[in-house]
C-alpha cells in the first residue's frame, strides 16, 4: 500500500514538473506579466523623477534606487566600427583588453562589447532576444546601448515597442545639445510623435567614385568637375556609359550598385504605419526597367551579380574594367580602400546621377539601462561633440554629423584624401547631402530592399520573366513578414 502511495506521488510530481515546464515555455503568460511589471516600475520611477527634479535618469529603474550606476555597460554592435569610434572619442576609457571585448573606464566601470555579425540577421536576433529579456535581466546583463542601422532603425525607435529611450529621458536636449546635427538624421531617429530616440555620428550622402586612369583614357580628363558634368543625371549617365562601353569599360559593376539612388528617392514608405500592405514604389520599377536596359546594353560588368561578394570586391581592384562605384563616405573607407590593389590616388569623387543617402549607424540607449549617465556621456561624446566629430572625420574619412565641421572640411585642405589623389571629397558629400530627400522609412525596409533585389536579380540575369520575379518577391516577403497580406504594384 505504501509503495503504491509513493509511486502515485512520484507520478504526480513528474506530471506537475511537465506542466510547470510547459508553463515556463509559453511566453504568453510570462511576457504579459513582464510588461505589466515594467509599466508599473516605469510609472513608479517617473514619479520618483518628477519628485526629484534634478535627477536626469527618469525612467530608469536605478533612479528610484538613488541614482547609483551599474558596474557593467553592455554595448551591442554588429562590427568593431562602433568600438573603435567610441574608444577614439570617449576619454573616460582607460584601456581595452587585447581581444577587444572589455574596456575599463577610469571610475572602474567596465564596458562589455557584445559584437554579433549582421550576416543572416544574427545581430538583430541576439539583440532582440536580449531586449525582450531586458526587464528580467540582472543589472549587469542589461543592454545599455546598442547600434542600429538606418535600414532597421524604425523597428527599435517605434514608440509602441519602447525599447529605445527618448534622448530627453537621458537628459539630452536634441534641440540644443544636438543642434549641429543634420536635420534628416534627427528625423529618421525620431518616432511617429517626433521624439528623438537615437543619435548618429555620421551622415551618409552618396557620391560617385570613379577610376582616374579610365576617365583619362575615355574622356581625356580626370577632373572631377568635367566628369561630374558627364554623370549629372541618368540620361547623361547613359550616354557616358555608351562612351565607356565603346572603349571596353563598364559604367558600374552591377544593378545592385545603382539601387540605392532609386530606393532612397521613393515617394512613400514601403509599408504605411499599421498597414499590412506593401506598396512598391514606381521608383523601384524604374530601377528594374532601367537596369534591364543597361544590362542588355552591356553597361554593367556581367561577372558581378550582386554586392558583398568576391566578384564585387574583385571589380574594385586594378584588373577590373569597372569605371565607377556609388558610395557614401564609409564605402570608400571600408570597401574600396581594402580592395584596391593598385597605386594610391587612382580614384576620384564626383557627383552621383541622383543624390542619395545610404546607411548610417545610430546609437540607441536601451530602455531599462542601469547606466544612464555613462550612456548619455558616450552618446554626447560621439554624436554631439564638435571636436570629436572633427577627429573622427580626419581619422576615418567619415562624413560626420555636424554641419559646421563638415562646412569647414569642405573648404579646408586638411581633409584631402591620399586615396583620392589628394582630392577633398567633402564638397561633393555636402552637395549631395543638401539635395537629399530622405526616403520615408518603415520597419520593413531591410527585408523589402534585400528581397526585391534578390527577386529581380534573377529577372535581370535573364533567369526568369518579370511576372515570376514579382511572384517570387511576394512569396519571399510574406515568408519574412507573416503579417504582410498584400503587395501592391504601381
Amino acid at each position: 500500500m505504501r509503495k503504491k502511495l509513493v509511486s502515485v506521488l512520484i507520478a504526480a510530481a513528474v506530471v506537475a514538473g511537465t506542466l510547470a515546464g510547459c508553463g515556463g515555455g509559453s511566453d504568453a503568460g510570462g511576457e504579459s506579466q513582464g510588461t505589466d511589471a515594467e509599466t508599473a516600475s516605469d510609472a513608479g520611477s517617473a514619479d520618483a523623477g518628477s519628485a526629484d527634479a534634478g535627477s536626469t535618469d527618469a525612467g530608469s529603474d536605478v533612479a528610484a534606487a538613488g541614482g547609483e550606476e551599474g558596474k557593467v555597460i553592455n554595448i551591442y554592435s554588429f562590427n568593431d566600427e562602433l568600438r573603435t569610434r567610441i574608444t577614439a572619442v570617449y576619454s573616460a576609457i582607460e584601456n581595452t583588453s587585447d581581444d577587444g571585448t572589455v574596456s575599463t573606464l577610469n571610475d572602474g566601470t567596465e564596458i562589455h562589447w557584445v559584437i554579433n555579425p549582421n550576416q543572416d540577421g544574427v545581430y538583430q536576433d541576439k539583440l532582440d532576444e536580449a531586449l525582450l529579456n531586458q526587464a528580467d535581466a540582472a543589472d549587469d546583463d542589461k543592454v545599455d546601448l546598442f547600434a542600429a542601422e538606418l535600414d532597421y532603425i524604425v523597428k527599435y525607435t517605434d514608440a509602441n515597442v519602447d525599447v529605445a529611450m527618448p534622448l530627453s529621458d537621458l537628459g539630452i536636449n536634441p534641440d540644443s545639445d544636438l543642434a549641429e546635427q543634420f536635420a534628416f538624421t534627427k528625423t529618421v531617429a525620431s518616432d511617429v510623435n517626433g521624439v528623438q530616440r537615437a543619435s548618429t555620428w555620421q551622415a551618409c550622402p552618396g557620391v560617385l567614385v570613379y577610376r582616374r586612369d579610365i576617365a583619362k583614357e575615355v574622356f581625356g580628363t580626370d577632373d572631377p568637375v568635367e566628369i561630374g558634368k558627364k554623370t549629372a543625371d541618368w540620361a547623361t549617365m547613359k550616354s557616358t556609359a555608351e562612351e565607356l562601353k565603346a572603349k571596353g569599360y563598364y559604367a558600374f559593376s552591377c544593378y545592385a550598385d545603382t539601387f540605392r539612388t532609386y530606393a532612397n528617392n521613393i515617394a512613400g514608405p514601403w509599408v504605411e504605419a499599421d498597414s499590412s500592405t506593401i506598396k512598391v514604389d514606381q521608383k523601384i520599377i524604374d530601377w528594374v526597367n532601367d537596369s534591364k536596359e543597361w544590362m542588355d546594353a552591356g553597361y554593367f560588368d556581367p561577372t558581378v551579380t550582386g554586392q558583398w561578394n568576391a566578384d564585387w570586391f574583385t571589380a574594385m581592384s586594378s584588373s577590373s574594367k569597372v569605371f565607377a562605384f556609388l558610395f557614401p563616405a564609409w564605402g570608400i573607407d571600408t570597401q574600396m580602400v581594402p580592395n584596391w590593389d593598385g597605386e594610391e590616388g587612382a580614384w576620384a569623387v564626383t557627383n552621383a546621377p541622383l543624390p542619395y543617402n545610404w546607411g548610417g549607424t545610430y546609437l540607441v540607449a536601451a530602455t531599462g539601462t542601469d547606466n544612464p549617465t555613462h550612456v548619455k556621456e558616450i552618446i554626447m561624446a560621439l554624436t554631439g561633440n564638435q571636436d570629436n566629430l572633427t577627429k573622427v572625420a580626419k581619422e576615418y574619412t567619415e562624413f560626420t554629423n555636424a554641419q559646421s565641421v563638415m562646412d569647414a572640411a569642405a573648404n579646408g585642405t586638411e581633409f584631402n584624401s591620399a586615396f583620392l589623389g589628394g582630392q577633398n571629397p567633402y564638397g561633393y558629400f555636402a552637395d549631395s547631402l543638401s539635395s537629399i530627400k530622405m526616403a520615408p522609412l518603415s520597419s520593413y525596409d531591410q527585408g523589402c530592399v534585400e528581397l526585391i533585389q534578390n527577386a529581380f536579380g534573377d529577372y535581370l540575369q535573364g533567369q526568369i520573366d518579370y511576372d515570376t520575379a514579382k511572384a517570387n518577391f511576394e512569396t519571399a516577403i510574406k515568408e519574412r513578414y507573416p503579417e504582410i497580406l498584400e503587395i501592391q504594384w504601381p
Partner: protein
Amino acid sequence: MQNKRKLVNYAKWGYIFILPFFASFFIFSLIPLVDTIRYSFYEYYRSGIKEIGPNFIGMANYASLIQSDMLKYAGNTLILWLIGFIPQIVIALTLASWFVDVRMRIRCQQFFKVVIYLPNLIMASAFAMLFFTLFSKTGPVNSILMSLGVISEVIDFMRTAFGVRTLAGSMNFLMWFGNTTIMLMAAIMGISPDIFEASEIDGCNSTQRFFRITLPLIRPILAYTLITSIIGGLQMFDVPQILTNGQGNPDRTSMTLIMFLNSHLRSKNYGMAGALSVYLFIVSGILCFIVYKITNDNDPDGSKAAAKAKKKRGG
C-alpha cells in the same frame, strides 16, 4: 519466503545508469518536440520586436502551407537528393564488392577506405564554402577551363538551376559515398563465404555472383541505406543554403524543405515552422516505420514465405 529475500535485484542499476539519457532527452528533446507540435496550431511570430500571439488558429498553418510552394520545395529536395544518391549507391556498391572480392586482391585497401571516407569528416558548410569559391565566376575552375580553351566564356554555375543542383548533389555524393561503401562492405562480408565458394564451383561468373547472390543477401542493409539516406535528404540544408546564400537561387529551384523552414524562422514564425516540422515528422515517421519493418524482418531472403506458399499450393 527465505528464498525470495536472497534474490538480489540488479535491474535498478540499469535504470539508474540510463536515467541521465532519459532525463536529458526529456528536457532537451521531448518538451521542445511537444511545444513544436503545440505551436503549429497557433499564430505565433514576431513583427519587428513585437511578439504576435500565440493565438489558437487550428489547422490554418497546415492549410496555408499546402497552398504555398511547399510541394515544389519537396520536389527540389527530392531532385537534389536523387542527384546525390544515384551515383552514391552505384559507386558504393561497385567499390564495396571490389574491396571484399578476394580474387581482386586490391592493395592498400585500408588507405583507400580512409581516403573515400575523408570528405565526410569535413564540415558540410565548409565543404559548400569551398565549392562556392571553386565554381564562382572568378574561381579557379572557370579560369582553368578558360586557359585550357575548353570554354570561351565564363560559366556562371550559380545562376543556372542545373549548375546549382548538380553542385549540391555532387557534394552530397562526395560526402556520403565513402560512408555507404563501408557500410555495404560490412554487409557483404557478413555473407557466408561458403555461398560464394559454392557458386564458383557451380560455374557462376562474377556478374551472376553480384546480381544473384550479393545483392539479394544484402537487401536489408541496402534498404536501410536507402531509407536513412532519404531521411537525411529530407533534412538537406547546409550545402544548398551556403551555396545559394539562403535564397535557393535561381528562382527558388534549389530551395529545400529545411531552407523553407529556416526562412520562416527569420521572422520567428514558430507556428508556420512548427506546422512544416510536423509535416516532415510525419513523412520521416512513415519512412522510419518502413525501415523498422525491414530490419526486423525475420524472413529476409523470402524463403519462409516461399515455403508457406509452397505448402499452401501443395496442401
